[in-house]
């Protein structure tokens, strides 16, 4: 076999191997190049985004999820004229102690993204709403700052902005006179879909605790659904029947 033939043969085999590796059928690729929905497609009830937080993995003195959320969404440092109890808390660390057994738990508390959110029920303008894919948000364009939702939320997950702000994060526009809360990093979810990792979860992974699992509750094959199926979980104040999208394990 001449050198030329060998070269052609090698090139052909290389290309064939590359093609086989990338696709198993026309249009079906093993290597997923695009993530999430296309930018121009609306969200749908096909997905319901949620999270599982394993309190056994959550370290008592660790605050990485809170810091990461502040960084990502630009809260926590710019409300210089507000009292500490007025300042925003999209996510906070809570330490609990069981009175009877003395067992202690540490967990992050954030908007629970309820299926039937009481905040949206009481909102007089429709600013509090649940997106088709289950993420509960505040449309600040129509929020009048009445704070009914803050009263209605059993998780105390919402904050009100008391002062004029500047240089907000592009991920989370926020301003005086409106209510806000965790958005489940909706900008990341819209970009990455089921591969999205909210800022809190990302920070937790980087710390090596990996207490968060984000995913689609509607997809039985998602890592979240599989983990929930295998290990079970608890929803906080499940007695209220709100069906939160945030599940906890180990409490």
């Amino acid at each position, binding site marked *: 076999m001449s050198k030329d033939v060998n070269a052609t043969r090698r090139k052909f085999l290389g290309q064939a191997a590359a093609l086989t590796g990338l696709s198993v059928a026309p249009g079906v690729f093993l290597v997923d190049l695009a993530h999430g*929905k296309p*930018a*121009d*497609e*609306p*969200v749908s009830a096909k997905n319901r985004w949620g999270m599982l937080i394993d309190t056994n993995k959550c370290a008592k003195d660790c605050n990485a999820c809170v810091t990461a959320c502040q960084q990502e969404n630009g809260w926590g440092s710019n409300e210089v004229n507000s009292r500490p109890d007025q300042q925003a808390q999209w996510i906070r660390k809570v330490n609990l102690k069981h009175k009877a057994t003395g067992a202690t738990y540490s967990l992050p508390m954030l908007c629970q993204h309820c299926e039937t959110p009481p905040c949206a029920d009481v909102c007089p303008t429709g600013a509090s*709403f649940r*997106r*088709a*894919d289950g993420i509960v*948000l505040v*449309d*600040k*364009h129509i929020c009048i700052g009445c704070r009914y939702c803050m009263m209605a939320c059993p998780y105390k997950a919402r904050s009100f902005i008391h002062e*004029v*702000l*500047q*240089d*907000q*994060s*592009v991920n989370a*526009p*926020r*301003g*005086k*006179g*409106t209510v806000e809360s965790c958005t489940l990093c*909706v*900008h990341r*979810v*819209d*970009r990455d879909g089921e591969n999205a990792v909210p800022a809190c979860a990302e920070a937790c992974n980087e710390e090596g605790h990996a207490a968060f699992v984000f995913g689609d509750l509607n997809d039985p094959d998602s890592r979240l659904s599989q983990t929930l199926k295998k290990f079970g979980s608890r929803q906080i104040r499940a007695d209220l029947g709100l069906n939160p999208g945030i599940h906890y394990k180990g409490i």
Partner: protein
Amino acid sequence: MKSLYYNNKRIATLLVAVLLSFALPAMADTPVPVVPKGKGVKCVEPTDVMRKRHFEFILHQRDATMHEGIRTPQHSLAQCLNCHVPKAEAGQERVRYGSDEHFCSSCHNYAGVTIDCFECHNDGPTGQPLELTGAEGRPTPLAQPLDLVDEAVRVATREEEE
């Protein structure tokens, strides 16, 4: 009598001339807003369309993004600012909304139109400008037709581009 008539006519002509001499330069001196030029070759829509309808684009995008998660860059407010507000020079404060040098307020101050976008939104660039070379059409297709923008303008715009 006749001379008086002519005199009156002459006075009237003189009066008109004097008035015009005041009015004409005044018309030429009508202050117009000085709008800073944006980056890039062209905007996401033709200039005349943007002048008339930018608020409709932004309003539409606002609701689409907020409620449906549609995050196309074409009519995103953040993208407006990425092109139209310059980044802060080293050691200097960036131009802020409210200043006549800020792209949005240069015209809004002139027209006396108060907007509240920047009570929540960052009033400066937060990312890289969209790259439009000028030869291509729309950078991204619209998710759905804009109800507020009449089809006639859109068709005319398309024909112009062709």
